[in-house]
């Protein structure tokens, strides 16, 4: 099913969505609550992962007195709609979901959030979803996908929930609109194939890649900061932390980064991944080998955030290629 909405009705659509649930739209740095204006030229720096694995997920609340029973907390059940999500970011959530299926926090947040995706019309030089084997027009992970073309919005509901997000003003699409949609989708993927390195990686022996000599050279520039992991829409590691102020305490889940020294540090001081190289290697091995072996696809959606924001100039492709060529 495909619907058409005039571009000028966009504000009406947003107003309609705002009535249904808390509405978030893309800003420059992160998704922000809708306040009457919207731009979607580029992806926000922080992906919608922030809504599902938030920077602060309270799990328990307690009084710091012996014998006190903690109170179990769960995310607020309020419905949310995130508007203008890119296909890559939405696909990332389906990857995280493979691991987090049984996690109560993630599941509840996933259930309560609707994602409205915006189709990318032109390829950008920074990102490469297709190289990771993702079809951005499949709408995977989204509830509704829309495409902006010549003063027209073409709306394609993906899920049952997505159908309820179509505004009343939207009309059923004519055959020529459908053809247009299909053509744009087809053109986008023309000459764009999944990276051959990825296919090669599937067959490579894990320990050969792990012990390869290129890691030393490629990891040299890395500062082991957490930019790539925190901006990555697929990185899902977390840390559990007890916050106490006075008598009140809260056990929270916060995002963690495998680039940090503390990530693997035992209480005894022993650290299995003490060297910066080991931590660097672990991140890419997880994304492009461990996850690939377990689930058949890499833990990367090609959004390009890590490449553009890395202060040390590390590039994902160099590493994938090196891994594929060992």
């Amino acid at each position: 099913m495909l619907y058409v909405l005039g571009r000028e009705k966009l504000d009406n659509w947003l107003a309609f969505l705002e009535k249904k649930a808390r509405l978030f739209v893309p800003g420059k740095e992160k998704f922000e609550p809708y306040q009457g204006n919207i731009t979607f030229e580029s992806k926000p720096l922080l992906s919608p992962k922030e809504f599902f694995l938030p920077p602060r997920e309270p799990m328990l609340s307690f009084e710091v007195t012996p014998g006190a029973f903690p109170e179990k907390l769960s995310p607020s059940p309020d419905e949310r709609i995130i508007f203008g999500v890119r296909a890559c970011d939405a696909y990332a959530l389906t990857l995280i979901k493979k691991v987090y299926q049984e996690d109560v926090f993630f599941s509840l947040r996933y259930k309560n959030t609707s994602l409205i995706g915006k189709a990318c019309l032109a390829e950008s030089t920074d990102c490469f979803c297709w190289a990771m084997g993702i079809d951005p027009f499949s709408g995977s992970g989204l509830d509704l996908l829309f495409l902006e073309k010549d003063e027209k919005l073409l709306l394609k509901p993906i899920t049952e929930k997505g159908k309820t997000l179509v505004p009343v003003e939207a009309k059923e699409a004519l055959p020529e609109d459908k053809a247009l949609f299909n053509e744009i989708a087809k053109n986008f993927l023309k000459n764009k194939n999944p990276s051959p390195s990825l296919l090669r990686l599937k067959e490579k022996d894990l320990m050969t890649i792990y012990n390869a000599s290129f890691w030393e050279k490629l990891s040299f520039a890395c500062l082991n900061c957490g930019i790539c992991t925190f901006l990555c829409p697929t990185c899902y590691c977390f840390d559990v932390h007890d916050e106490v102020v006075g008598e009140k305490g809260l056990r929270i889940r916060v995002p963690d980064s495998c680039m940090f020294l503390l990530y693997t540090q035992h209480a005894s001081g022993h650290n299995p991944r003490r060297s910066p190289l080991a931590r660097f290697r672990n991140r890419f091995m997880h994304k492009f080998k461990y996850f690939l072996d377990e689930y058949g696809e890499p833990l990367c959606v090609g959004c390009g955030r890590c490449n553009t924001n890395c202060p040390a100039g590390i590039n994902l492709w160099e590493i994938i290629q090196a891994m594929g060529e060992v």
Partner: protein
Amino acid sequence: MTFEPKIIAFLCNWCSYAGADLAGVSRRAYPPSIRIVRVPCSSRVSPAMIFDALKSGADGVLVAGCHPGDCHYLTGNMFARRRFYMLKKLLEFTGLEPERVQFSWVSASEGDVFAAIVKEFTITLEKLGPNLNFRKIIKGEGFGFLCRKD
């Protein structure tokens, strides 16, 4: 209800703590707003300790040591003076109510000076009101994505 400020005071063991003791022994009246932490020297106090006190809900932090030249460790307070100067400037720069953090010299014989300091500091804090800007608030629903104002 009137606001009763809470002050965490880091007092040097050799001068200021003795000064506070003297204030008590000589029955100088001063407000009960102060909670004393005894430290070996004023230079032992690191900014993390000061911020930790504020974060945990103190309305003011007082650091007191020996007068320059009188340090038990000869020069500890002279080093501390430089550091506190920098810290004070940093707080001013970031607009974080620099009045809440005060440094002073109190010798072992200055019981009444200590009482006066506590009194004046308490008045300053009463005017300033409770510490709301640099106090950590623990929230059940923590959609930290939008920060505290959310």
